[in-house]
């Protein structure tokens, strides 16, 4: 009588175990990465009601971030500027431009322009821009090279583990307070000593307490 199982069937239990291990690991890695903000949030680049270019305004014209986001140093929010700020220049420059019409309309009719929020934090997170700027955390650290963006997209995951990475090891992310909006700033060779000095002088002790960000 012929054998029911061929000889390779002897390897089946081992192969099955191996396959289960590989599949299990793949499933875990898949969820780990593809369900995380590194994948779901980074690169979010909504279409805005106005084709506003940071590349032109912040880079070519060299306008400081704070010209428009004027409350960022004193407020939790880095305010989206009122259209009044746009009209400071655009009353004269390119006033008839097709692309500018939503701004002009908003200004004339006094109705807010509906920008689409790019950087969204969960509603149970109470982030404050002003304290980060005072400590010397630059704009580019969390928002990337906005001065090179034609359309703003999210550059970092803004996840809790990502926040905590910096809160636990802030040294590489601190810069002199007068360099916070400088998009080209790079840590110098003496960054470690500089960070130690700045932390001491400004009393920087990043919290890792739950209640630091959640209430």
């Amino acid at each position, binding site marked *: 009588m012929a054998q029911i199982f061929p000889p390779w069937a002897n390897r089946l239990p081992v192969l099955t175990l191996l396959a289960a291990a590989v599949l299990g690991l793949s499933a875990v890695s898949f969820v780990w990465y593809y369900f995380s903000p590194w994948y779901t949030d980074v690169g979010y680049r909504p279409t805005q009601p106005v084709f506003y270019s940071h590349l032109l305004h912040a880079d070519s014209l060299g306008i400081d971030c704070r010209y428009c986001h004027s409350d960022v140093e004193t*407020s939790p929010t880095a305010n989206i500027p009122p259209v009044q700020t746009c009209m400071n220049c655009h009353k*004269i420059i390119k006033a008839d431009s097709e692309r500018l019409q939503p701004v002009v309309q908003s200004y004339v009719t006094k109705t*807010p322009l509906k920008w689409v929020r790019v950087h969204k934090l*969960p509603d149970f997170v109470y982030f404050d821009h002003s304290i980060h700027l005072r400590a010397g955390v630059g704009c580019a650290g969390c928002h990337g090279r906005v001065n090179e963006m034609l359309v703003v997209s999210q550059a970092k995951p803004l996840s809790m583990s990502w926040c905590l990475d910096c809160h636990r090891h802030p040294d590489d992310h601190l810069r002199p307070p007068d360099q916070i909006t400088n998009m080209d700033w790079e840590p110098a060779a003496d960054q470690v000593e500089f960070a130690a000095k700045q932390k001491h002088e400004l009393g920087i002790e990043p919290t890792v307490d739950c209640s630091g960000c959640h209430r």
Partner: protein
Amino acid sequence: MPRLTDIRPPVIPGLLLLAVIVPLLGGCARESPSEKPPIHVVPDMDHQPKYKAQAESDFFADASAMRLPVKGTVPRGYLRADDAFYRGRDETEAYVTANPLPPTAEVLHRGEERFNIYCSPCHGKGGRGDGTVVARGFTQPPDFVSDSLRQMPVGQMFEAVTNGVRNMPSYRHQLRPEDRWAIIAYLRQLQGMTEPGDTLE
């Protein structure tokens, strides 16, 4: 009919399939731009029924969740009765000639920083009226180092920053009064002038 012993597990086709799938998944890795809003698999309480700053509201007619103060009301600490400080004018409605902020190193540093952020796009870093926005077609502002502007009382400068003058818009919503005075103190330094009775620390 093939015998069971002839069948081999599909090892090689399986490996080939993996070799195709893995790079495909890698292709939609992070930083690939997308216009679709992020999907959070576990939304927790990401979205709560509350207003955040500059949020949209479906309750108010203008769709803005943030409201202006009621007309004719003054928030605590915002009476601004000091005309010299908040309007640049004295009791006789004449422009003040002395900066209410003494030009300490701290004030001048603040003034320089604020000037470079808010004024230099048009007035230029040196105050000569050669900013980048002027190069793009904005009307050229006067040179701060000219005689007419050196003779302008600081109160009039303050009024110009606060309410705007000719083509210059008002900067009252971007600059607090103390920052406007700090800028004026820095301007006086750019103009090579010191005010009577001032001492530099």
